[in-house]
């Protein structure tokens, strides 16, 4: 299809047919949009995005917006101010998928959007982009509603800036939001989080215990000597020894790393048993060596 022959109606028809085509066909449709001039392409895409009656058309428009990459950036940034909150939410989602740092200032402003779902999408997008300019605004967002604390905590873990460590630690005691906070602290892997995280190792709730152990092990994997200062309760020690026989290999490995770094002598016999295991052998032997040191 020649550039000069492309009309709005034919682009709309292509958008409509997008999901009835195979991958090659969809690539072809994207190429036609790419070849058309901005005013035409983006007018059709925007109409598609605002089509609340047909989400296949809307999703097709979203795929093409993203596929057109940097060229879509000013249009999507502009749509972050659309009157329709759903359009603003989708624009935030697309900007996160595109991971273009040019969207960061606008997404930071969007953290103050009146709609909770729009703010949620902006926080999630900022995490995907991973730009440190978002750190302070996301830390401020931690002091709000659970619906925003969750993406903000995850985003701060993904960005990996250590300014987030202390504010995240302060939320470890808050039920619900402590779940993403534990994960984020594991990603940030700073030894100052070890003590507060280790207190969750004797939690009643098994999932919380397992997530905390994962974070502790991630930190110890980077700072193995920090484990010497860690005081584990009897309950936490027992729980970790039990985890050495968990059905999850990851849980077994995390328990072995932690028991080794914390030099838990009563774990030795269990670790020796695992030292010839195909999956666990190496981790167990390292743990034994640490305890014996």
């Amino acid at each position, binding site marked *: 299809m020649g550039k000069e022959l492309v009309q709005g109606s034919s682009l709309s028809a292509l958008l409509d047919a997008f*999901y009835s085509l195979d991958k090659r066909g969809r690539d072809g449709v994207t190429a036609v949009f790419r070849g058309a001039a901005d005013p035409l392409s983006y007018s059709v895409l925007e109409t598609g995005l605002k089509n*609340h009656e047909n*989400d296949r058309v809307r*999703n097709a428009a*979203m*795929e093409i917006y993203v596929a057109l990459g940097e060229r879509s950036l000013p249009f999507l940034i502009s749509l972050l101010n659309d009157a329709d*909150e*759903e359009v603003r*939410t989708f624009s935030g989602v697309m900007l996160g998928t595109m991971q273009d740092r040019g969207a960061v200032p606008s997404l930071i402003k969007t953290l103050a959007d009146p709609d*909770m*779902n729009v703010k*949620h999408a902006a926080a*999630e997008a900022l995490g995907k982009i991973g730009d440190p300019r978002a750190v302070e605004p996301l830390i401020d967002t931690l002091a709000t*509603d*659970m*619906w925003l604390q*969750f*993406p903000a905590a*995850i985003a701060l873990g993904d960005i990996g800036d250590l300014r987030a460590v202390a504010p995240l630690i302060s939320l470890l005691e808050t039920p*619900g939001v402590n*779940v*993403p906070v534990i*994960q984020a602290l594991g990603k940030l892997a700073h030894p100052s989080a070890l003590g507060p995280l280790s207190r969750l190792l004797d939690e009643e*709730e*098994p*999932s*919380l215990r397992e997530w905390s152990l994962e974070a502790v092990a991630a930190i110890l994997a980077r700072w193995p000597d920090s484990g010497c200062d860690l005081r584990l309760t009897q309950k936490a020690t027992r729980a970790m020894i039990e985890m050495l026989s968990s059905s999850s290999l990851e849980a077994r490995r995390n328990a072995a790393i932690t028991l080794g770094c914390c030099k838990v002598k009563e774990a030795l016999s269990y670790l020796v048993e695992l030292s010839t295991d195909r999956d666990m052998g190496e981790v167990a032997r390292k743990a034994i060596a640490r305890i014996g040191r």
Partner: protein
Amino acid sequence: MLKKVLVIDDSALIHQMYKMVLMRYRCEIIDALNGQDGLDKLEKHPDVSLILLDINMPVMNGIEFIKKVKELGKYNDIPIIMVSTEGKEEDTMRGLALGAKGYVKKPFQPSDLHAIIEKIYPSK
């Protein structure tokens, strides 16, 4: 008893949120990213005790998923809770008419979802 929950949502972040919200039930959670993926997961896990279903998803949306489930017939006993947003009342009504047991709107608080689950699976 709530043993296994199929969560169908295209956002990985929302899946993590559900893990937190559902933690208290100590149930297994199966993740699916759209309606089609949800149907595939149902084939592998026909013993699912609850489906949490986003309405707006690519590939196959929530309403199409409910229609397919009804067509197949064999999963009709599995309760479905829809998760929608403000302004999606028409879709929500369609889903309920098709047999969904209830709905919550994003943004929801854990207690909103717990209340609906409690109606379907009373703890006492």
